[in-house]
């Protein structure tokens, strides 16, 4: 379990708190959605989960984050990365290998998996995201959507207990979106915890998260099951979020 316990964080040099007194618990075997307007602190929240904050981002932090009972301050990001896999918003920042295959094996090698296991998990990860056929290509020759899926494979191959993904659907066509949903659902089925940050509520609704958090100005302003959150159309709209289509229809019918 990951426990975020009363965390307030302000980036060094910034005048405002990026997160304000955020408390939440993330369990295994569940999918969590995190939504909110630009700058509401979604990416910052993800950075807390694997210890990038406070290890790599300077600033003022109150509260604490526990990953299976271990305070993230007491463990290194490299150690935490075995448990919490974080996929960044921008995939380009991570690629340095000559081939897609090597790129995906970098994480498993870093955490010291044995060679046999690496081979298996790299193949599995690439197949999951549908890039096995492109394994000999250079990561830089891929399209934007493929790069994003490659970045997910890079983390999947490390077999983390929790997977946190920042904006997985950006640049994805509807087929890829569907296959991403399948991956995340399978992970939930295998008892992994999945955390998804997205602006794409239509897709999130289809994914069927267990809990949705709405962030605004660094505060969790509402949390609950998808039905409860998505049917509060006014709340979503005032936060610049487009509710899933079927909820809009429902509310129109109700008014009518």
């Amino acid at each position, binding site marked *: 379990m990951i426990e975020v316990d009363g965390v307030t964080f302000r980036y060094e*040099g910034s005048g405002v708190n990026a997160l304000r007194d955020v408390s939440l618990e993330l369990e295994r075997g569940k999918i969590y959605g995190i939504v909110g307007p630009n700058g509401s602190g979604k990416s910052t929240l993800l950075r807390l989960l694997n210890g990038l904050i406070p290890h790599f981002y300077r600033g003022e932090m109150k509260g604490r984050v526990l990953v299976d009972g271990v305070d993230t301050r007491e463990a290194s990001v490299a150690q935490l990365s075995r448990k919490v896999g974080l996929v960044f918003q921008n995939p*380009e920042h*991570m690629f*340095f290998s000559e081939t897609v295959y090597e790129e995906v094996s970098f994480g498993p090698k*870093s*955490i010291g998996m044995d060679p046999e296991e690496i081979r298996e998990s790299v193949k599995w990860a690439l197949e999951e995201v549908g890039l096995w056929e492109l394994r000999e290509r250079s990561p830089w020759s891929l399209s934007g959507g493929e790069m994003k899926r490659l970045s997910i494979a890079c983390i999947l191959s490390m077999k983390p207990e929790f997977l946190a993904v920042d904006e997985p659907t950006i640049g994805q066509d509807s087929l890829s979106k569907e296959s991403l949903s399948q991956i995340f659902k399978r992970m939930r089925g295998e008892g992994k915890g999945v955390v998804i940050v997205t602006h794409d509520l239509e897709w999130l609704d289809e994914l069927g998260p267990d809990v949705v958090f709405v962030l605004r100005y660094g505060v969790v302003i509402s949390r609950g099951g998808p039905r409860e959150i998505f049917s509060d159309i006014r709340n979503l709209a005032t936060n610049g979020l487009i509710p899933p289509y079927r909820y809009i229809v429902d509310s129109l019918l109700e008014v009518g």
Partner: protein
Amino acid sequence: MLDPMGMVEIFRTQVGETPYSKLNPLTKFILFASFIALPLISASLLMQIFSLVAQIPLIILSRSERRVKRSLKASLLFIVILVVLNYLTTHSLEFSLAMVLRLVSMIIASAIFMTGTSPAEIGDLLTKLRIPLQITFSFVIALRFIPVLADDVVMIITSQVSRGYELEKGSFLEKVKRLVPILIPMIIIAIRRGHQLAEALETKAFGATEKRSSYVVYEYGRGDWILLIYAAIIIVVGLMVGTLTPQFQLLPFRY
């Protein structure tokens, strides 16, 4: 120990206005030029210490205390290596220290200027000084890219450590080798950014006319005059300090 994120801190984008950033760009440029010239007046250690100390008001006005402190701390190992290398070739500890302090003080001066002056301001300034557009523009773009790339470095490092990568592991040589997964994305991203920029400029018909129009007018406030006087005093005092102490030759040869 080797903390590349800390080293680039001083060049990272600064959010918000500071008393320094509100100065007239010409004032900022003159201050910058003065603090680049100051350490060059003489090679003495005293001169270099004076240059550093004289910059303290600017560091405070630009609210850079923490960034400067962090960057210095992160670069400590690097600085020590420079001093040692310098000592091995010159056999003068005082001279080595002076040279490294000179470098540090010039880096601080550049960082304050770059992070506290918008590229647009620098561009307008250079245009006013009748420097050809091609040169002005290249210069501005180079400056604009420094904080962007510094931010990229942060994203790259955090991406790699999130994949279980340990920067700190191993001997010094191994650590240097461990920078590869950081440096390669860095270079590729820089090249890509360059291409994107070229395309963006072409679509905006950059270079179609010799004369670009400009509508911004910069004013002089009291702060500007105070700091210009400060710059003048610093240079005069610097010249005096320069005559006070014996000069070192650049490489003291022995026969």
